[in-house]
């Protein structure tokens, strides 16, 4: 237990110590929020879909979570390059604990990032339908963050260096984000709506949307079941790949 805790703590310390990283990873979601939110707002309202900001904010939270989590998971590559991974791998600690500690740490960081985006969006005019449900939204963020951190870990365990990073961003993270219904409604999106059903981020955003804005596509129950099962699968796959890492 203590080993998991110290690995979790390390991720948090690294997060709080790099202020540029916190600010840097907030800039992108905020830009999306402002440009899309205010840019498309009037069109969205004209189409009779209501307040676009209420619709968009859960999507932007999902965006900051997927980016931060996958990056956190992939930090293993840095640890490998700069040698620190060896220190944890020669220690008498099961690989599973190392993977769990890191993943929990990365997921906590991503959840904090998502929570910051939530509160910043309130400055832009976003209002949750029920303030008492905000803690529940944070729990959904944590679950989604676990899912994507585990995915990042699984990928990073198979990668040798940072060269593949750009590829992962352009061919995995970006499509996951754009196809998730983060910025447009899935109902009536035709084929896109079908594709979105295979994207775990769709369920994360749908869950946040039903909790924060009372807008729903799949149903909150379905969202939670899908998220939990996919998280479990990725955790198993991630720890299997991580257990096979050789230096």
């Amino acid at each position: 237990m203590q080993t998991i805790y110290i690995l979790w703590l390390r991720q948090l310390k690294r997060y709080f110590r790099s202020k540029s990283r916190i600010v840097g990873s907030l800039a992108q979601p905020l830009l999306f929020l402002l440009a899309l939110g205010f840019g498309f707002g009037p069109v969205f309202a004209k189409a009779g879909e209501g307040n676009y900001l209420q619709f968009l904010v859960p999507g932007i939270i999902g965006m900051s979570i997927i980016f931060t989590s996958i990056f956190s998971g992939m930090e293993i590559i840095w640890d490998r390059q700069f040698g620190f991974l060896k220190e944890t791998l020669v220690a008498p600690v099961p690989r599973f604990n190392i993977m769990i500690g890191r993943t929990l740490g990365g997921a906590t960081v991503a959840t904090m990032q998502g929570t910051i985006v939530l509160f910043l969006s309130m400055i832009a005019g976003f209002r949750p339908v029920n303030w008492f449900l905000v803690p529940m939204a944070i729990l959904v963020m944590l679950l989604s963050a676990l899912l994507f951190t585990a995915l990042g870990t699984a990928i990073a365990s198979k990668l040798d260096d940072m060269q593949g990073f750009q590829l992962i961003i352009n061919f995995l993270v970006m499509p996951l984000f754009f196809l998730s219904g983060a910025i447009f409604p899935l109902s009536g999106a035709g084929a896109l709506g079908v594709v979105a059903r295979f994207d775990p981020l769709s369920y994360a955003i749908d869950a946040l949307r039903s909790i924060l804005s009372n807008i729903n596509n799949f149903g909150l129950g379905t969202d939670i079941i899908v998220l939990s099962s996919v998280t479990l699968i990725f955790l198993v796959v991630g720890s299997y790949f991580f257990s096979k890492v050789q230096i």
Partner: protein
Amino acid sequence: MSIIKVENLIKKFGDFTAVNNISFSVEKGEIFAFLGPNGAGKSTTIKILTTLLSPTSGKLLLDENDTQKNPNDVRHSFGIVFQDPSLDDELTAYENMDFHGVLYGIPKKLRRERIEHLLNFVELWDRRKSYVKEFSGGMKRRLEIARGLLHHPKILFLDEPTLGLDPQTRNHMWEYLRNLNKTENITVFFTTHYMEEAERIADRIAIIDHGVIVALGTAEELKKQTETNSLEEAFLKLTGKNIRADEASTIDVLRNGRKMWARK
């Protein structure tokens, strides 16, 4: 009593045989030098001994525990200082030590005492709150040695520990390690490219080349066997004068950036 026992160790990477059927043993309390040109199989052997790599075949016992069957017991029994730094730059010196202590299950109070003692010893106690990224190469090496000793290992592996250190630091380090070897009976297993260092410090020396141990014995024995006057001459006579191709380190790979998927 042998504390390290290696029997018929073979390690292949695809078609390339990095370690080709070597056997040797190291006695408890011995200082053992493992020498060889670049790419001879030194680091691979150390990685296998320290459970970072699994062997293709062969048997390895550390303090009577099999590296394959009981990796966790094996991991408790040794400390290691790697060839390249393995510290977390974003943590302070104290935090790096503390992290290690927790991983090795050292109780809090004992951990504090030992960290203070060891950091004082390597003269870094005053810098305990500094981030490791602010440290020089020599300071990092000292911190790694202190860290490697924190859990009181029976064996200390050092992979080119003195690379890039000035003579002052080098002497200080060896003085400490020798002292530790005498007082605590810690077995020291090290690699180096400095022949005079091996000659001066090691009880016994093994020379490995192309994955095979070509000579093993005290410095005197190696000199006698090759009819030379110094270990350096003996080394060159045994391994030839050709310059070896070395495999790129992970950092080189990062810089060159040619490959994306993990090597198999």
